[in-house]
């Protein structure tokens, strides 16, 4: 009975999560003529025309490459800067810890619609217009608060003695971070990294403003360029969405398996 209930609950939740996505998949496979007609719910025949269209009509591979590069660099940078900061805030003695955490948080409280134009001014002044670098800096900055908060939490949950042991065993603070703290906070690292990656993968407003050409165009801008003046090609949009979503999810799944499950089966004994 209990397990039946649980299975039903799981099915319901999976349905809620997956149904809209499934609808996108279906849409992306429907022939153009059937796109907006209901019935049929399931297309009478499947077609790859929308997938062909996104790669034929647009430099979509280049755009995916740009996004991958931006998202990967953002993730590395955000973790690379966020982890040491979180480490200092949770393991070392910092005066004004609460103030720092609050300040970091405050940065993410301004709506992007307001910060985008001064940022544009600043990046232009630095000559970074239409570069992926401008996006990486911006994304890293706006992902840092989450990374710092999240990692500080995970680090603080580790037994302090492990850090002490590493220090006594000869590590510098930095070495202890790399050899002991980071490996043990892998679930947090993965979560923070994934959220950062997906944020950078999907961000539209900054990307639209800071880039002009294919040299720096990212996926959301690329997809925003699909609709014509009035016409909205739902099939192609859906195909593009499916194309750019699946790799991320597969990647995330693999990471989750590799990193987290290996470590957490027994978890950290205090």
């Amino acid at each position, binding site marked *: 009975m209990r397990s039946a209930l649980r299975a039903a609950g799981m099915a319901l939740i999976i349905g809620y999560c997956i149904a809209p996505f499934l609808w996108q998949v279906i849409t992306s496979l429907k022939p*153009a*003529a059937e796109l*907006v*007609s209901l019935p049929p719910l399931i297309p009478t025949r499947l077609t790859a025309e929308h997938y062909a269209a996104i790669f034929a*009509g647009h430099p979509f591979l280049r755009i995916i490459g740009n996004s991958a*590069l*931006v998202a*990967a*660099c953002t993730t*590395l*940078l955000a973790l*690379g800067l966020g982890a040491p900061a979180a480490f200092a805030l949770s393991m070392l003695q910092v005066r004004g810890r609460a103030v720092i955490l609050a300040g970091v948080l405050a940065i993410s409280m301004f709506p992007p619609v307001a910060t*985008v*134009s001064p940022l*544009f*001014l600043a990046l*232009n002044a630095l000559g970074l*217009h*239409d*570069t*992926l*670098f401008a996006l*990486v800096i911006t994304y890293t900055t706006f992902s840092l608060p989450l990374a710092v908060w999240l990692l500080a939490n995970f680090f603080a949950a580790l037994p302090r003695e492990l850090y002490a042991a590493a220090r006594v065993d000869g590590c510098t603070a*930095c070495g202890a*971070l*790399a050899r002991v703290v*980071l490996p043990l906070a892998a679930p947090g690292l993965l979560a923070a990294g994934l959220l950062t990656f997906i944020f950078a993968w999907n961000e539209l407003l900054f990307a*639209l*403003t800071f880039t*002009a*050409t294919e*040299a720096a165009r990212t996926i959301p*801008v690329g997809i*925003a*360029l699909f*609709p*014509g*003046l*009035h*016409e*909205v090609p739902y099939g192609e949009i859906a195909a593009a969405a499916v194309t750019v979503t699946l790799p991320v999810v597969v990647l995330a799944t693999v990471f989750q398996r590799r990193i987290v499950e290996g470590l957490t089966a027994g978890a950290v004994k205090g």
Partner: protein
Amino acid sequence: MSRWAPALLLACAAVLLPACDADGPTPGSTVVVFKHGKLFGDAAPLRALLDEFERLHPGIMVRDETLPAGSDEQHQFYAINLQANSPAFDVLAVDVIWVAEFAHAGWLHELALELPPQERSAFFPGPIEAVTHQGRVYAVPWFVDAGLLYYRKDLLEKHAFPVPRTWDELARTAQAVMAREPGIAGFVWQGKQYEGLVCNALEYMWSNGGEVLSAGRVVLDTPRNREALAFMADLVHRYRVTPASVTSATEEPSRHVFGQGRALFLRNWPYAWRLFQDPRSRVYGKVGVTLLPHFEGGASAATLGGWQLAVNRHSRYPEAGRKLVRYLASVPAQKRLALAYGFQPARVALYRDPELLAAQPFLATLERVFAAARPRPVTPYYVRVSQVLQSELSAIVAGLKTPEAALAAAARKLREILADEA
């Protein structure tokens, strides 16, 4: 991990910073950037046109950069760039409602020579009005759009109704046909809270002799406008010929409903025609198109849309930019684009061009529509005006406010906005 991170970051930085001059221009040439919203599917014909321009003007290269087609995204992009005095682009395509605003903000070069008075009559009068701010022109009309009434020829014939000329006829015809054709909506149009709603509403007001602004004064709260908007709301709530979901409808959903054969009348732009003429369309061969209806005693009015070419005030190469504008707005260029994309040129003469008419007979119908099409109130504050109207009109369509209350409130807010000017 932390050990190779720095090396990796360095490598990334090398890639991320601009890959300079990989296929840059030949030295000494001027690169003009043409920024425009996405208008067309295939980029090749436009590129061919620009190549031709480069051949004609040695030393000038043109790079065209596309923005998303959404009007709001473009306005946002231009606002940020132009406010920052960015010279990142030289020539830009401007929506018909922005010219006065951009000109007033000092963002555009005056284009007196590109559009001298004697040449203005070659264009439709609506766009010329729209590109004129305080007696000067700041943009050259490129192509035009206007509201049309699409109808189901077959259904009107089947039930022996004429094509409606007045709004009243439209409502009665729709009611009658709906009674005999279950599953058919009477009249679909665009009622979501967005710019398109203003376009729709203006067509009711104008076709009843109403106005929004007159000589810089707000003349919104008048009996004619109240009557017109009351009718618009009645379409949904009293005659029930328009489904209540019109409050979320933009161009595409309404086109799809009509295109599925589930509506009798549709208000939309000319682009829909081409799609209904596709043999795979469910309404292929069953669609007619005409001027929008008017109220008894009024005249049909269509809201003008379309895009104009302008030169960025902070352009590094304004002269080259002007040349490009002149070229793109020329008769041959507009004709080539019309042939390639089915876009509707802003030059009247092209609507009598045999070659073009042969390719797109529909243009003959459109000529009288565009000739009568009216620009939305030409004021630098139009976008703010429109926001007020969108909110109040949406309340009318949703049945939350009476036209009286909404118009009174809108008029008050518009006066505040215009008072800012002083």
